């Protein structure tokens, strides 16, 4: 007669192992080509595309920038970026609430990256899921607009824990909303003591140059291997 035994198999591994493996492949591909990569994450409408446009209208080595736009649907953001004459590709995730590493890897393999030094990835608007998924980026940048409320670092700690840079956007609207800047800065630093914080307005331009200078210095830090 057939018998049934119960047994426990010890697994002890990350649930995201396969995702992490692909993001390591991306990291290696970028390192080999000396490309510095930014992963921009925020809620919908915090100003990611606007900031990328500001960067492109001032960035010296425009020919060396490539942009990947992530959205559920449409090419609207890619069209906005394309007007600046840079290499751009749109990923439509359909029902996916973030860019998957495999989607980014496939996009990078389709693009001509021979002149690219700086890769900007605009993730799908969402503070939860993109935080969980590494894309092999060098710097993860979270944007928070002042109209979203100052308690967001408490509600979505993971994105603040895992980001290298916090940009507080739309500071021109501060007079019209209740937003405690000190509270946000403090909460972000509690989540991540090493986070760099910038405040800026794409409308008045205030704070934008300081951030762009920082981006250029990031790119300088990474050069192809001899």
């Amino acid at each position, binding site marked *: 007669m057939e018998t049934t035994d119960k047994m426990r198999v010890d697994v002890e591994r990350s649930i995201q192992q*396969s995702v992490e493996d692909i993001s390591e492949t991306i990291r290696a591909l970028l390192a080999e080509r000396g490309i510095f990569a930014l992963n921009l994450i925020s809620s919908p409408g915090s100003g990611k595309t606007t900031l990328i446009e500001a960067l492109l209208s001032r960035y010296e080595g425009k020919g060396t920038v490539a942009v990947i736009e992530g959205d559920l649907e449409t090419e609207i953001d890619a069209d906005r970026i394309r007007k600046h004459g840079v290499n751009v590709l749109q990923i439509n995730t359909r029902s996916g609430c973030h860019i998957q590493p495999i989607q980014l890897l496939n996009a990078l393999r389709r693009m001509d990256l021979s002149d690219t030094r700086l890769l900007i990835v605009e993730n799908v608007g969402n503070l939860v899921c993109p935080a969980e998924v590494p894309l092999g980026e060098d710097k993860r940048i979270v944007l928070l607009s002042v109209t979203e409320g100052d308690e967001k670092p408490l509600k979505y700690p993971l994105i603040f824990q895992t980001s290298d840079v916090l940009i507080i956007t739309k500071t021109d609207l501060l007079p019209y909303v209740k937003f405690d800047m000190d509270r946000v800065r403090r909460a972000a630093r509690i989540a991540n003591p090493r986070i760099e914080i910038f405040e800026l307005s794409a409308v008045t331009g205030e704070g934008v140059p300081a951030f762009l200078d920082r981006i250029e210095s990031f790119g300088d830090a990474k050069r192809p291997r001899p």
Partner: protein
Amino acid sequence: MHELGIAEEILGIVLAEAERNQAKKVSAIRLRVGVVRAIEPEQLSFIFDHIARKTLAEGAALEIEEVPVRVVCAACGEMESRSFAWECPKCKGYEISVQGGDALEIVSVDIEV
């Protein structure tokens, strides 16, 4: 709804383990999930039940061990918290850092062979 993606990852790993061990059935899956992962255990179990239908893991129970964050306060020392904190739960001071609570792991799988 990020629980769906996570449930799919879990199912993939579990079915691979089940096959490797020639299991007839998976009865339970132990997970370790940090509180900052924003995962709703009931939601995750509900979705997992759904996608595991007609597989070896049909009806398997998800046993979720929640991992707290560590709050380190300059005045009070170290303590655990079930949620992210922006002030020390004890002295209400701001001289704190909050660490960990980001685990997302499969600990073990119970199978019948």
